[in-house]
């Protein structure tokens, strides 16, 4: 087991924890989206969706590309992979620990 470095990971998870932001990410992962398109999809005010986009940007989950007045968002895969790796790491960690606990509990020497 390699020690897992958790750089930026809290910000990633905070960004992922909101259902609207998860929907935005799903849309952006399918193809790049304009800010106006996203606001329309959620029938949300522009400042409302803008807040979510900023959180996702600060977590390096999406990247903003500015062309004149048009803002387009694309997915940044590295942060997503990091979140996925966090889950996978702890899944292996706890499954293995619970296996050990099971051995401990069923070992005749341990049960009084």
């Amino acid at each position, binding site marked *: *087991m*390699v*020690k*897992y*470095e*958790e*750089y*930026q*990971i*809290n910000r990633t*998870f905070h960004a*992922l*924890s*909101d*259902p*609207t*932001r*998860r929907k935005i*990410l*799903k849309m952006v*992962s399918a193809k790049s989206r304009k800010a106006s398109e996203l606001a329309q999809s959620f029938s*949300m*005010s522009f*400042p*409302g969706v803008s807040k979510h986009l900023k959180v996702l940007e600060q977590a390096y989950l999406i990247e903003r590309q500015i062309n004149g007045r048009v803002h387009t968002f694309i*997915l940044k*895969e590295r942060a*997503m*992979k990091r*979140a*996925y790796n*966090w*889950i996978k790491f*702890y*899944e*292996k*960690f*706890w*499954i*293995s*620990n*619970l296996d*050990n*606990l*099971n*051995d*401990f*509990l*069923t070992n005749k020497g*341990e*049960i009084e």
Partner: protein
Amino acid sequence: MTTETLETSLKIIRTFEAPLEKVFQPWTDPAKMVKWMGPGAIYCKDVQIALKVGGQYRIHMFSEEDGDHIAIGEYQEIVPNQKLVFTWSWESGTVTGSLVTIEFESQGESTQITLLHENFPTKESAERHNQGWNGCLDKLEKFCH
């Protein structure tokens, strides 16, 4: 790009062929925890537990390959034979920790454990998100415009 990465927490449900108290004790008794904690080639060298809300724990694990893995945290909720909630972080790490919730349910001679590991630093921040806090703020904002 797949979307399985959108999960923010991990949940494991598992049944043990042992009664409730026997399954709960190894989580709170350092002398017992030291015998099972530590996945794979990693074994537990030492466990210190201050079992009370706000109390700290320190689990010193070790492997020949990577050296020390020391987990530390604080208990947020303790209900004997029922529930444990504690923060979890690595002593050498630089970021805020995560939150582990373990629930124990008796099924006669066997016991079911539900383990939830969320990447939130406290119970409050986890609950705030689960209550759809952000959803409420969005609705409120729409109303104000």
